[in-house]
């Protein structure tokens, strides 16, 4: 019985870490956000991410394709279509229903964390945009 409880607790902890605590990772989150605007090919995703983050994140091909592969395996994104432009392959990716739901969950999670951070900073007398009060 104790072992079962321990196993159940471990499983819950892993799930909590992997799913509930935003274990998606920043790169995957940004890729999902980019694809939320519609199907895009790899290079367009990179440019969109730079735009979303005001140039803070300059993702490179290795990181992008690691994220795309992971998200495809998890069923969060899928291939929309393929095109050949100037003899180069362009594969467009789109957000799946599961991916959309996951992005909603992640966004909610981040929003809750942000609200807590905001409350605590206010308590410390910090206001936004105008520096320390």
């Amino acid at each position, binding site marked *: 019985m104790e*072992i079962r409880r321990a196993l159940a607790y471990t499983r819950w902890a892993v799930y909590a870490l992997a799913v509930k605590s935003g274990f998606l990772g920043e790169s995957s989150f940004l890729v999902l956000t980019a694809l939320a605007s519609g199907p895009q*090919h*790899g*290079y367009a995703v*990179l440019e969109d991410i730079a735009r979303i983050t005001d140039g803070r994140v300059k993702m*490179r*091909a*290795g*990181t*992008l*394709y*690691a994220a*795309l*592969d*992971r998200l495809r395996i998890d069923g969060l994104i899928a291939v929309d279509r393929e095109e050949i432009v100037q003899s*180069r*392959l*362009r*594969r467009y990716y789109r957000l799946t229903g599961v991916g959309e739901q996951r992005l909603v969950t992640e966004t909610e999670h981040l929003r809750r964390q942000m609200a807590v951070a905001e409350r605590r900073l206010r308590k410390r007398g910090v206001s936004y945009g105008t520096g320390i009060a």
Partner: protein
Amino acid sequence: MNEQLDRRYRRLLRVYPVQHRLEYQTEMLAVLLESAHPGQRRPEMGDVADLLRGAVVAHARTALADLQDDAWRQAASVMHIFGSLVMLGVALREITLRFALFAPIPWTLAGLREIDLQRSMVWALVALAAVLRWRQLTSPLAVVALIVEANRVNWQVISPTSMLSLAFLMTMAIVVLIASIWAVGEAGPRPRGTLMVIAAAVLLVGSGLAGPFVVGDFGDFGDVKVGSVWISPIIMPVYVLAIALVLWAGARQPVMIFRRLFVLALPICTTALLVPYTLEFMDAHLGMSSSLPLIPTEWGVLIITPPAAFFLGFVLLRILERRLGVVRLANATTGDKHVTYVDPQH
């Protein structure tokens, strides 16, 4: 298009696993070339580091996926059963050996130690749970067996060098535990050759009855030194037969499972060879009052060798099976049975 840059990126992308390259190489190359500055001839250092990191992640991911396939789980199940039966034989051998050496009156338990009885009982339960597939109990019992094995090391009184003589069995207990966890849910028929391994365990138990002939401190006339143990030529054939039976049982498995069993057995074999042949100096101090504690390097070698052996075996097996797969594919495509090797890198 800058051909030089194209060629350099292609060369760089070869570090990715074949599956990944088949799926993404063309579009990755397109993205890399589109991201390049006008006139750029060499990949940027940032891109190189990023691609290398991505390749490591891709390799790790495909390796983890491989480890979850049915062949590995079935091999783990076989290792769980065979390993626990051999460990039961080894544990019972200690009892029969002590019985033959120390029992003052025949058919009494006077010379037996409590730890040997505990150990035999625990391994009997582990083997029973493995053979009868008591799913809920296999891993917890394997944990208890590992604790009992570790308990045999006399950590305080002598020195950690006593660990050396038991390292091989500790490694085997760890492998059995990992195999029991890995094989969870595996409910196929009992593996072929189980009776052979049981026979090998019985031979080990019986060899203990040879008592004084089994081991000697310095070796009597005609004894054979195997590692750091002197073995009487009378008992040697029994050990050889027991090992042959286990090997034969392993060889009776389907080839995919046999290969994986071999890889799973590598940590045990390397530890068995490591102690007498590379840490011999420390091994020679065993049983002496002046035995020295292990130095950190020796601890490091002892701890790193088993996982390193497994990792190396796993990587080599992946390469071998990938190449065999390509050869089979080539044979099927060309119908030429004499095609022996096709390099997937080209």
